């Protein structure tokens, strides 16, 4: 297969995933109980049945499901995501406003998690049990601490007591530190655990003896040889990392009062706000497809054995 054909296939696969995700979201949302108009009105509405019917008709919710689906696909193909039922704004505007804060938060958290996680793993893999236990303890505590706790804790110490970082607001990069920490530390814990496991497996391989026989020691051994093997399993973890970031963003944005797709997701899903959910799913699926694409490109770079077809 030449490169063009492969690229075309990858793009087609990606489009397939995005389409599938949108479809799944569409039907999922129709399965979510409750009437969209009711939910829009909320718990304290003064609605009359007429108003209710009008809203239903206006949103096209009275049509049969398949025709709603076709209409939905039609709009989708034109890149028309429509307006939010609840917020009444064009979905693109909402996504546009909220995408960057979440993306920057996610990236910052990811970088932090990668650095802290791999550092912790490298520093302790194959070392004395006491060290390993200590590292493992912090990692697992981070993993099993809910992000709202972690966020509140970090805020209490670093913002309220020490005044190092603001809670939120338009203060640029300093306002990103604590949220990224909150989102990133549990991830770092996961990464450290997985990478350490992989490092320790690698450190027992025969080629490690050869490498040591060349005068490589401690750090060099880990960085130059073992880490590559760890990176390979890390790449496999992208799905998890992606999900944790998208999922964790909700709570972190809530605690820090940050704008972002996370809080938008919760309100859109719970309010059955179809256009927004669709938009979010599209964004999320596209991002995932891109991330997996990058991973698919990176994986054979890290592990050359993947570059050839497997026979038998």
């Amino acid at each position, binding site marked *: 297969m030449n490169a063009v054909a492969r690229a075309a296939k990858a793009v087609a696969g990606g489009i397939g995933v995005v389409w599938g995700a949108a479809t799944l979201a569409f039907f999922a949302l129709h399965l979510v109980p409750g009437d969209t108009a009711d939910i829009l009105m909320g718990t304290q509405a003064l609605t009359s049945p007429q108003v209710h019917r009008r809203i239903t008709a*206006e949103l096209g919710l009275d049509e049969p499901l398949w025709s709603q689906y076709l209409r939905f696909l039609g709009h989708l193909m034109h890149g028309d995501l429509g307006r939010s039922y*609840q917020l009444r704004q064009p979905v693109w505007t909402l996504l546009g406003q909220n995408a960057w804060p979440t993306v920057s938060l996610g990236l910052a958290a990811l970088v932090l998690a990668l650095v802290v996680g791999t550092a912790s793993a490298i520093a302790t893999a194959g070392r004395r049990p006491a060290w390993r236990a200590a590292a493992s303890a912090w990692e697992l505590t981070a993993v099993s601490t809910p992000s709202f706790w972690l966020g509140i804790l970090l805020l209490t110490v670093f913002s309220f007591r020490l005044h190092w970082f603001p809670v939120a607001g338009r203060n640029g990069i300093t306002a990103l530190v604590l949220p990224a920490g909150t989102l990133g530390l549990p991830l770092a814990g996961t990464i450290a655990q997985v990478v350490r496991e992989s490092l320790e497996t690698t450190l027992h391989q025969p080629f490690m003896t050869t490498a040591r026989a060349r005068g490589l020691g401690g750090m060099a051994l880990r960085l130059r040889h073992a880490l590559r093997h760890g990176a390979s399993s890390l790449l496999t973890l992208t799905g998890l990392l992606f999900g944790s970031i998208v999922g964790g963003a909700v709570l972190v944005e809530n605690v820090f*009062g940050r704008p972002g797709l996370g809080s938008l997701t919760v309100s859109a899903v719970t309010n059955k706000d179809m256009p927004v959910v669709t938009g979010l799913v599209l964004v999320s699926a596209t991002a995932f497809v891109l991330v997996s694409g990058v991973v698919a490109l990176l994986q054979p770079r890290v592990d050359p054995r993947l570059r050839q077809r497997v026979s038998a």
Partner: protein
Amino acid sequence: SPTGEEATPVSGGTLTVALATQPGCMDSQVSQQGVTNTINRNVLDSLVSQDGSGGYHPWLAASWDISPDLTRYTFHLRHDVTFTDGTAFDAEAVKTNFARIVAPATRSQFAAGLLGPYAGTDVVDRYTVAVRFTKPFAPFLAAAATPNLGFYSPKALAERGGELCGGGPAAVGTGPFTFTSFGKGQGAVLTRNPAYRWAPATAAHPGPAYLDEIDFRFLPEESVRVGTLTSGQVDVALAVPPSNIATLRDTPSVRILQRDVPGSGYNLYLNTAIAPLDDQRVRNAVQRATDLDADVRTVFFGQYNRAWSPLSPSTVGYDKAAEHSWPFDPGMADHLLDSAGWTGRDGAGYRTRNGVRLTIDWPALPADYTTNGNATLAQAVQADLKQVGIELTRTPYDIGTYLRKIHAGQLAAADAGWSATDPDLLRLFFNSADDPAHGGQNVTRFDDPELDAWTSAAAATLDPARRSDLYRKVQARVLELGLVVPLYTPSTVVGTGSRVQGIGFDAAAQPAFFDAWVAG
């Protein structure tokens, strides 16, 4: 100097305010959220202004006449009011706004309801406007005082009406501030309207607002909101959690302002169409078995008062006689239940009748739609009822299922707390015409001719004495029938930093920033 009220207000400065909820739609004519009003009150003006004791004062309307049958309200508007985009405020503007509210395309979730039996608006002359109703509609002035019936510039409505939910510069009002920017989750920024000269009589000062800018931020997490206040990162924090109030009162750098919210308070409505609550004795037993004094004091750290009536004490028409009329009396509850035939006991200690356990389900709303305190209070009530052998279960529902069930009248008990300045609220909750299947709020599903007659009559008169009398009877009767267990009176608790002065409350106990100023 932080000596308080005697100091002279100074102009200038930015006030940073931490809000507890993220507004969804920022269009006051559409949204039903309180937080939308908190922000928009500074941008949108109303025809009239209501004071804390139920009196009405001129605002955009210099005066008004009401037809004797309460179906036609004529307002004489001020001549000097302009929107911040330069458009003049006149009768046309009123008509355009009200027409928009009731237009189906607007899908108003709340304001359209406030207009009640709206029939139309007539432009009498440029500055005189008449609002017509198909039925007598006494609560209209109260409604007209809310930001939900505030006015957007007709020009802006025509040009950017579709963007109002997104807030920001598209929202052009006549208010003391202009809406500079809004981002979901990001916060809202309001900037002073220097041309403002039509503050209502209820305001403490005429002319423009003192503050240059108000910067609203959304911090839903309670402890974070408190932390930002105590660490000086915000000037004002709304919805201070009860657990922190006592400590904050003792914190020198913080001041606590508190005002009881008028309206229905926070109550538990019992569905009389579902067994075992179809038996009045069981309903009364629930009332008597609930030790609200202790429950409310503990759960809300002594900061909120228990309720005695389905109206909160700061509401016009509140019946003081309801107080202590149904005290905690587990003995009486036991007696009532025994007489209702719930005499058996099962292994878990609950009462039974013919082998059936005495169980009441009070469905739990998703956390987004309730507060930690309310959820905890429910557990306290659960424990109280267990003492007399009633099992109170709390089935968790997602919001969709919850609403479907409530509209179908399938929930045995439902909690609600509404803020409103007019006791007409009682009609929504207890008039049989307002049953949930028809979009009403009468989840008790109790069909009582007397209650129907009294609530309808009260909506058709403006005579304060007559209204009080009617509403007093309503309150007494619903308590006697056991349709409702009033739980507590919520209050608005605002924490401010010491440099902040002049924050007040409007009639609905919403914090008002027009008179606020910052020292230094």
